[in-house]
């Protein structure tokens, strides 16, 4: 389970130091990230019109989607700076969802065997 990572030795340390100090980035960096995300979105839209990508089309879209997803979760939602336990809780749900639903869609493909 995700919970084994709880580190009790840090308990006292956490209580004392200001929680707000580790809240990641300056505003400027957030704006930079937002610009990058906007560019990726532009690339996504471009890719959906670009014929030359061929078979790489869907993989490239998926990769860009994942990059955007991870960027928002990691930085805007501070998951990268925060305690690991938050990551565990969220990723438990996320990976369970991906695993279960991909398996579901796959079983529909196997049906005609």
């Amino acid at each position, binding site marked *: 389970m995700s*919970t084994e990572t709880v580190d009790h030795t840090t308990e006292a340390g956490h209580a004392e130091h200001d929680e707000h100090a580790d809240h990641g980035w300056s505003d400027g960096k957030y704006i930079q990230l937002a610009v990058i995300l906007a560019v990726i979105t532009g690339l996504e839209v471009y890719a959906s019109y670009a014929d030359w990508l061929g078979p790489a089309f869907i993989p490239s879209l998926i990769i860009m989607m994942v990059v955007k997803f991870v960027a928002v979760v990691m930085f805007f939602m501070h998951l990268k700076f925060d305690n690991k336990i938050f990551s565990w809780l969220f990723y438990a749900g996320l990976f369970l969802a991906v695993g279960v639903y991909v398996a579901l869609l796959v079983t529909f493909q196997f049906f005609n065997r």
Partner: protein
Amino acid sequence: MAIIERPTETLVPATATPAYVTPDSGLGVFRRPVQSEGWKSWLFTVDHKKLGIMYGVTAMAFFVIGGIEAMLIRAQLAGPDGTILSADKYNQMFTMHATTMVFLFVMPMAAAFANYMVPLQVGARDVAFPRINAFGFWAFLFGGIFINTSWILGGAADGGWFMYAPNSSVTFSPTNGIDFWVLGLLITGIASQTGAINLIVTALNMRAPGMSLMRMPIFTWMILVVQFLLVFAIPVITVALVLLMFQRQFDATFFSVEFGADPLLWQHLFWIFGHPEVYILVLPAFGIVSEVLPVFSKKPLFGYPFVVFSGAAIGFVGWGVWAHHMFASGLGPVSVAVFSVATMAIAVPTGVKIINWTLTMWGGKLRFTTAMLFSVGLIIQFTIGGLSGVTHSVAPSDTQQTDTYYIVAHFHYVLFGGAILGIFSGLYYWWPKVFGKLLNETLGKGNFWLMIIGMNLTFGPMHIIGLQGQPRRMYRWTEARAGEGFFNLGFWNLVSSIGTLILAIGVLLFFINVWVSHRKGTVASPLDPWDARSLEWLTSNPPKEHNFDRLPTVHALDEVFHRKYEDVGTDGHHEYKQVATTEELLAIEEANADAHIHMPSPSYWPIVLAFSLPILAYGVIYNLVLMVVGAAILVLGMYGWALEPSTAPETDFDQSPPSGGSELEVASHG
């Protein structure tokens, strides 16, 4: 301010339940209620212990309803061509029996134990979100009542608890029964979801100092696993229910085959939820048994880490086996093979538990109280259910067994023999903790043996009936296909129906036991009647409102045992000497009580918010105007909730107790 201020040298009598508050606040919208006695104290309470009792009482009421439904089903099937119920009523009956037992009895009963015990076991004063806790209870209660009102509003749901599409579409079930079922389960789902988040945060974040995760009592561990399962499984059934609701209410096409829909979508969504749900039902009972067996064996749980990890493993693997409910539904051999093997894999951690329970008793000093009997009974009965489970993890074999009474036998050995025996074990074990009185052991043993005999007579023959080819969900069976001799279906059906009567008498004995032990009021329980091991016994019976005078510091698994006993053996020999009684331990705690104890004040808003849900649901079925009313209450409740002060102001409480007798400066608040 809802604070208990106390001079540290004062001793509190163990029975003192602070209850001397005269509320002088009216129904000020943005004040908080302060009653600690009377019906208002229950209606507006946020105390996890009161809510635990309310969960328990409500769940027991639904247990009786579900039991009556079961007896009607068995009465109908006692002989060939039964005429007690019409086909329509019979279909409603088995649908509601399953729905009631699963969603309105076993799950809330587990919630009752979890609510009451988890904060006590981890050494907390309440759950992480007391108001959300109260909301969860009321949502469950209103949801349960809502579903059951369908009986008088045109008939209950008649599609089976699995509610397969497209039989659940309006075309095939034109009454409102399924609408009630869908919306009711959405409401109770909200209750489970909020409760689960609450308990996870409580177990993760509110443990007493020194209680690392591997020192957490095993019951709390199992509850933690269950809540994770709930948090992730409830959204899946929510999706399925929402699709079905849109299908029925707004003519969506999700399950309309004429539009090209695939009915298997529902089955997948339902069982992705449904299989974790099986573990949601049974793991709390495993937790209870894992508490009870060590106490009455005077030994720690054998292989505690293994039990913890096997519980977690069951929780995890439980997500990968859902399609074993669909071996006959035409998945294709690749999927069937994969899910068949995965299902076998889950038998391993389950087997680990049975082995560990047996080895916990091995070499112990066993006392057979009623609670212990129920736990040992669970090991035996659940093993039968588990082994019949192995026989249908083998997919080809399962295609002969699924949808027959053999499956009914299997899951009743798992759910009755597992979940319900565990629940009764927990009831007898924790009754003195919760109510300060012991249940009668003689009646208890009668209760146990009648239930064991009754359940084996009821569900045992179903193995035979099923293997002889009688399908489930048939409102009648015919003599023409009953066979002769030892395996005659008529004989075994009759035995099974008689078994329900014995089972019912057994359950009735429990209620008589409750009545007897509380009416006489003579058997005040000793503080620690079982010589128990975990933290919930380090407080009075029943616990004070704030649970612990001093938050205990934990040094070991089985903290209370190790405070009571010391190993005085030498040279590798072990000899345990009692160094303290629980009374003495409690006295130390009380002597060092915390100076400031903040407890949350009661609140009007949980019940208001929860009340909006059935109104909305009736609105969906009958009338949009009602929906508007429901939505208005919902919004009102949310803003009331958000704007409510975090505690009642100090002036709302009486500062000096009117009834006297105590020097304590206590402000209580329900």
